[in-house]
């Protein structure tokens, strides 16, 4: 019961973050929201392990945490040292 409440809260946060990823005007909005989605997914993995009575999957959660920050830093490094001219505020025009 209590894990179900937590899972529902995490899913709500996940959905709202997906909304921001799709809507965000700049790249950084999408990046922040993607980071939040990664965090929510880690929490979901942990909670789901407890929900089904097999909490041995937490290693995957740890792996996701490391991958999350690797992805964020890869994008940021590219933004800083790559082609800087076209980054911020490119809206889809269709």
């Amino acid at each position, binding site marked *: 019961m*209590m*894990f179900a*409440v*937590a899972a*529902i*809260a*995490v899913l*709500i*946060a*996940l959905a*709202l*973050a997906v*909304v*921001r990823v799709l809507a965000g005007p*700049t790249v*950084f*909005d999408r*990046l*922040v*929201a993607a*980071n*939040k989605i990664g*965090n*929510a997914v*880690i*929490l979901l993995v*942990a*909670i789901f392990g*407890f929900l089904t009575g097999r*909490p*041995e999957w*937490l*290693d995957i*959660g*740890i792996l996701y*945490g*490391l991958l*999350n*920050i690797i992805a*964020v*830093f890869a994008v*940021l490094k590219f*933004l*800083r*040292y790559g082609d*800087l*001219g076209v*980054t*911020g*505020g490119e809206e889809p025009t269709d």
Partner: protein
Amino acid sequence: MLDLVIDAISWILILAGSFFLVVGAIGLNRMPDVFSRLQATGVSDTAGAGFILLALVFQAGFTLVAVKLIFLILIFLFTAPVATHAVTRAALSVGVTPRLFDASGRQRRKITEEVMRAKTAARPEPAAQQKGKGKPGARKKGGRSSKR
């Protein structure tokens, strides 16, 4: 008795964590610009995840699972502020200006835009104006690319 106490503590922690997570997600959608969104989601996300994982630690007891969960909490505590900080620095260095607004919000925003324009116009090469980077970021990038 002890089980009841542990369950109560877990309930409280999970409710607090869920509250923080959902509030952070709402803030992510309601705030006006990048920096306030970062502020809304970075802080509350770390808090919410920490609370929920702490509740799971209480549920797991003294097992290997609890050790893994504490490891996960440590990863959250270290990586989430670092990621937030890095996103903020990158946003500033690329040229996203924070939107400062009060009751007459539009006025303040114009002032900051003029300040940023003066800052970029004062730089020596005119080609950098469309990039709109701040000075420390530019110096750091110069040093890095000369090393390359």
